[in-house]
């Protein structure tokens, strides 16, 4: 019996080492060759989740690149920021979306629930530090272990195809065609806020998301680049507004050292929204052209940026 148990333990250790060894080997190969360099080289890069993904049409904003991606928690944005900074010296300013739902407990799910792990973890696994992998494993062991084989397979495919160009896999402007704002307004669902922000939306926050936002800010500063937190336009009836006072408090208390630009009140018609949180392509066109003009008018070097923005708001002029 003793021999039997010894051999089982030995087999367990061997097989675990084999998997970890293969995983690490593939990760290190990918890390050596991975390319995040953008062509053409941008000066401005937009990061965040689906709000900026649908709002910044980078073809209308000079020298910019939108690499926001839907359902992205700061845990994964941090990896992207790090790699973009390493390989894109042309980048001057990084716009990081920071809106109401990004402080909410829902972001914990976006970081480690099984659905998000299966998509985000498998994609960014080669670049995730071991300690961060352990965090994911401890938070959701089953989800992590289910995603692990897929991530190894994805790494293997990357190596086998010799395709290390990640610059086109990081996200990008989404040309949203839909328009369902009016129908949403007619059937306002009292539970929509919980869907958007998670439980205890008005009085609790996702600490891991805020910690990673802080890490994003630190690493950008370490690279002597300009970091700007932004809130893209949202509909006045946006479900996430229920935590507005908490949101404002967090921005004021924890991120007062960072430039913060609030475009949430940018005036748009209902038909220019895809839904209450996202601009459709019409709204994105109007906003992006206006935003481009702000950049041309030296928004980023002005001392009172928010006042300047408000003074230039289309219907406030």
């Amino acid at each position: 019996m003793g021999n039997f148990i010894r051999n089982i333990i030995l087999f367990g250790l061997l097989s675990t080492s084999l998997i970890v060894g293969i995983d690490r080997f593939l990760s290190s190969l990918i890390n050596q060759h991975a390319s995040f360099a953008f062509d053409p080289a941008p000066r401005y890069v937009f990061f965040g989740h689906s709000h900026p993904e649908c709002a910044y049409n980078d073809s209308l904003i000079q020298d910019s690149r939108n690499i926001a991606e839907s359902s992205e928690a700061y845990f994964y944005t941090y990896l992207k920021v790090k790699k973009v900074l390493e390989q894109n010296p042309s980048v001057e300013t990084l716009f990081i979306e920071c809106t109401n739902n990004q402080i909410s407990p829902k972001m914990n799910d976006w970081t480690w629930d099984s659905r998000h792990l299966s998509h985000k973890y498998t994609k960014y696994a080669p670049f995730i530090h071991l300690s961060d992998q352990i965090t994911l494993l401890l938070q959701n062991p089953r989800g992590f272990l289910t995603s692990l084989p897929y991530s190894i397979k994805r790494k293997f495919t990357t190596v086998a195809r010799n395709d290390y160009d990640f610059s086109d896999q990081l996200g990008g402007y989404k040309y949203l065609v839909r328009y369902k704002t009016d129908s949403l307004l007619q059937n306002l669902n009292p539970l929509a806020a919980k869907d958007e922000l998670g439980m205890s939306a008005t009085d609790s926050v996702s600490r891991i998301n805020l910690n990673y936002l802080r890490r994003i800010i630190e690493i950008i500063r370490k690279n002597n680049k300009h970091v700007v937190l932004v809130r893209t336009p949202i509909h006045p009836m946006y479900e996430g507004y229920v935590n507005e006072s908490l949101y404002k408090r967090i921005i004021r208390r924890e991120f007062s050292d960072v430039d913060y630009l609030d475009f949430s009140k940018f005036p748009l018609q209902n038909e220019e929204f895809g839904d209450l949180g996202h601009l459709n392509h019409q709204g994105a066109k109007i906003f992006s052209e206006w935003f481009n003009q702000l950049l041309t008018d030296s928004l980023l070097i002005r001392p009172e940026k928010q006042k300047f923005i408000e003074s230039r708001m289309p219907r406030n002029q």
Partner: protein
Amino acid sequence: MFSTLLDYYTGLKMWENKGNKNRKKFWLWLSVIVNLGFLGVFKYYNFFVESFSEVISHLGFQLNSWTLDIILPVGISFYTFHGLSYVIDIYNDKIEAERNFVDYAVFVSFFPLLVAGPIERATHLLPQIKTERTFDYDRAVDGLRQILWGLCKKVVIADQCAEFADKIFNNSADYEGSTLVLGSVLFAFQIYGDFSGYSDIALGTARLFGIELLRNFAFPYFSRDIPEFWRRWHISLSSWFRDYLYIPLGGSRGGTWSKIRNVLIIFIVSGFWHGANWTFIVWGFLNALYMVPSVILKTNRTNLDIVANGRLLPTLREVISMVTTFCLTAFAWIFFRAENLDHAFDYIARIFTPQLFALPIIRPTPVLVLVVLFIAIEWNGRAGNYAIANLYTKSKPIRWSVYLVLFLVIFLFQGKQQQFIYFQF
């Protein structure tokens, strides 16, 4: 619990009335009726009510059918057959009644076989339960090896095939010809990997406890004719029907017509055992039809040995026989997998279109590569109890390398989690 208590009690009563045939018969019939009654209520009641009301409505009458909204108890088909074999064996004086209730309850509900078999016999399992068992290193290692192979069959082959088989069967109206053929082939491997994988895991687990369960699969897709297939597929169920239904009906003792009748009966009952749906009955009937030629020609016991025994490759004749048998079986699986008869007939009709000779629209190349590798491993190990059973003859480094590779394959090539198909029965 009630079923276990009933069979335990009726078993004792029959044993007490050993000399009194009428009393024995009474207790036997009580057990049979109650056991089949449970099965009938839980599994078949709704089917009969709905079928009856459908027939009535075809005759122009309307009937408010009263169906039950109940959950089928897990493994009911399996433990009912355990109990029935026990009481019938006592009635036939093949075994003594078990006096120790705990031992009897372990026989009925031994956890590796509770939900999906193999269907055990009291004559085989009860003596093992009553014997004191000691740890046997080689047996335990063999058990783990069989579990590893079973996991590989289930998680890699069955679950990978299931993804595409489900896609094709669930959207069969969108496909034609070769794509639908591919769907039925993938389902054939799904159900084999799923059920034989489960059986391997059950047998391996039992072996860790020092118990040998009945073998359930013996490389059925290498069968050269349908009778051989049925000697190699779900062996514990086939032999149950042979011993408790086919032989009491007269078996192969009567004339040709009575043999054909008996074959039809056991295959239709076997189909019905799988589920309360006409698709299973047609599946059973189709397999009975496949059996008829060999019954008439008395060739049903032609292929009793292992195919190409002692040779690396089969002859052309053997290949043709195996492929033909597989095609017939895969065709019958269409009924087993379809939602209803309309779906099955529509699926078959869509196969026979000009698209039959074109390349399938869905081409799951990695899955097909895995299936080919799987067939090669099974072929190589077809003389053993399971495909990698003979690995123990190899040196330790080779054995461990194979285990590690299998573990890696399971880890990396696992399909999306699917429930075991036979859990529903």
